[in-house]
């Protein structure tokens, strides 16, 4: 009886899904502007022609992402620790930490990139790099440090206060307790949201193109502007998706592994 109901539910799901997507597809392909959209967004010749250069430019996105990620992980942890410092003497540090996080979470990333990328080199200080990609990475690190420090902080605060109290009663200093008791638990708990922020970072590498660096989106814009055809945008979008999907699945896998391990310990 219940087996029959299960089969019927599956059948309903399959039929309704098929009908839904067929109708949406029909609605789009019968829209008055569809031939124009197909010509300007889904031109196979354009796609094949622009993909090699866009793929090459995409390596710059990957490079920006990898470099920025390392610095963000370190700086954000520092910021989170500063914000969770106890005692009245640490108030100025905490205030600076709060102001930093508020500012860089409040200002649009593209503005930070524009101000740093065009502003910092204009100072004409010696030994200051002029590379646009360099300043793009600095801007991304500044912004994402603010976001990721909040993730870390949530992790730190999720570790019950009794753990710190127990560690301190065993004679550990504040730093020892933080390093050996609180942080290992905190970091493990926040790995999924951390990776979620990094998926965001992967996409935001495209903003560095604003400074003139030719990354994947900029390359696709160049192609679009040269031919007045947007198919290159679709090519760039597919490259970004191809990178973020594995990271998303990896996040799922980490969460699952962590749950299994904890269950094994519990048993």
């Amino acid at each position: 009886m219940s087996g029959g109901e299960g089969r019927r539910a599956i059948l309903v799901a399959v039929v309704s899904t098929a009908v839904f997507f067929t109708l949406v597809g029909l609605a789009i392909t019968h829209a008055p502007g569809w031939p124009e959209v197909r010509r300007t967004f889904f031109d196979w010749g354009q796609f094949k022609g622009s993909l090699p250069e866009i793929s090459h430019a995409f390596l710059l996105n990957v490079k920006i992402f990898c470099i920025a990620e390392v610095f963000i992980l370190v700086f954000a942890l520092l910021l989170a620790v500063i914000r969770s410092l106890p005692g009245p003497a640490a108030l100025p540090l905490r205030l600076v930490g709060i102001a930093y996080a508020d500012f860089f979470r409040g200002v649009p990333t593209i503005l930070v990139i524009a101000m740093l990328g065009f502003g910092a080199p204009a100072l004409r200080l010696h030994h200051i790099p002029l590379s646009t990609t360099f300043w793009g990475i600095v801007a991304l690190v500044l912004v994402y440090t603010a976001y990721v420090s909040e993730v870390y902080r949530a992790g730190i605060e999720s570790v019950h206060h009794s753990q710190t109290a127990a560690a301190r009663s065993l004679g550990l200093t504040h730093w020892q307790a933080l390093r050996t008791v609180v942080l290992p638990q905190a970091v493990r708990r926040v790995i999924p949201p951390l990776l979620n922020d990094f998926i965001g970072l992967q996409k935001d590498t495209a903003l560095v193109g604003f400074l003139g660096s030719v990354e994947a989106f900029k390359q696709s814009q160049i192609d679009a502007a040269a031919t007045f055809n947007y198919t290159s945008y679709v090519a760039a979008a597919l490259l970004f998706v191809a990178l973020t999907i594995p990271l998303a699945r990896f996040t799922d896998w980490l969460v699952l592994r962590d749950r299994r391990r904890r269950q094994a310990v519990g048993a």
Partner: protein
Amino acid sequence: MRRWFALPLVAAVAFAAAGCGGSSNKSAGGTTTSGNSCAKADLNLVNAGQLTVGTDNPAYPPWFGGKEKSPWKVSDPRSGQGFESAVAYAVAGQLGFAKGDVKWVVVPFNTSFAPGPKKFDFDINEISYTPARAKVVDFSDSYYNVNQAIVVKKGTKIASAASVADLKPYKLGVQIGTTSYQYIKDHIKPSKQPAVYDTNDAAVAALKNGQTDALVVDLPTAFYVTAAQVPNSEILGQFPTSTTGEHFGMVFQKGNSLVRCVNQALAKLKSDGTLTQIQDKWLSKVGGAPVLK
């Protein structure tokens, strides 16, 4: 059982959407060509009775002139001053529009070729004709034959370059969508990836900061950049591109019957010498740059 009801509902909604698309196809699809006449009343216009012209904001000299007036920055296309503004009003005059019937709208370069209905009758924004672009939009005939030029800061290393080959080792900057970029790729082939900016302002800022060694722009703009935007800069030279016959054209919705009438107007302005007069008035300084071989 309840779930079964949802299915026809979804179907009905989707069919309605598809149906709407289908029915409007007949009225909106295909530009309605109202006869072959170029009389003002017969023109295919976005807004009846007025000529809607697009260009980017800020509007820079020497293409546009006059004092800046909101919403326009740097200058004002409505002034009739500057080369492209003067050409637009001359064309409008030929088509039978009074100055007050010409309306200007802001059209960033990147949106001038977006698919779908356009908010302008034509866009005049130093846009070069290429065969690939002409598959997507319609271009008017040439209203200006253009050469690309290179701007450098005086006293920098690149300022001593004497040929196109000498430019190879440098970081060049360019605005997106310009044929300057294609020229760099095809002819200079620099060892460093050129920096490509969304706007000319960003490309100019990068040259000022020393983030790029040189800026490749069309020659009339190069004169404005050296005169007003980058202190201590000079035009190193222009490129021998005139052989390829690069020219600016006004951009129209693909299939717009208005193109034919604008081309007639341009032909008249060329044959009676008006276009040359306008060019002499606003671009007179252009031409005095050495050609880099």
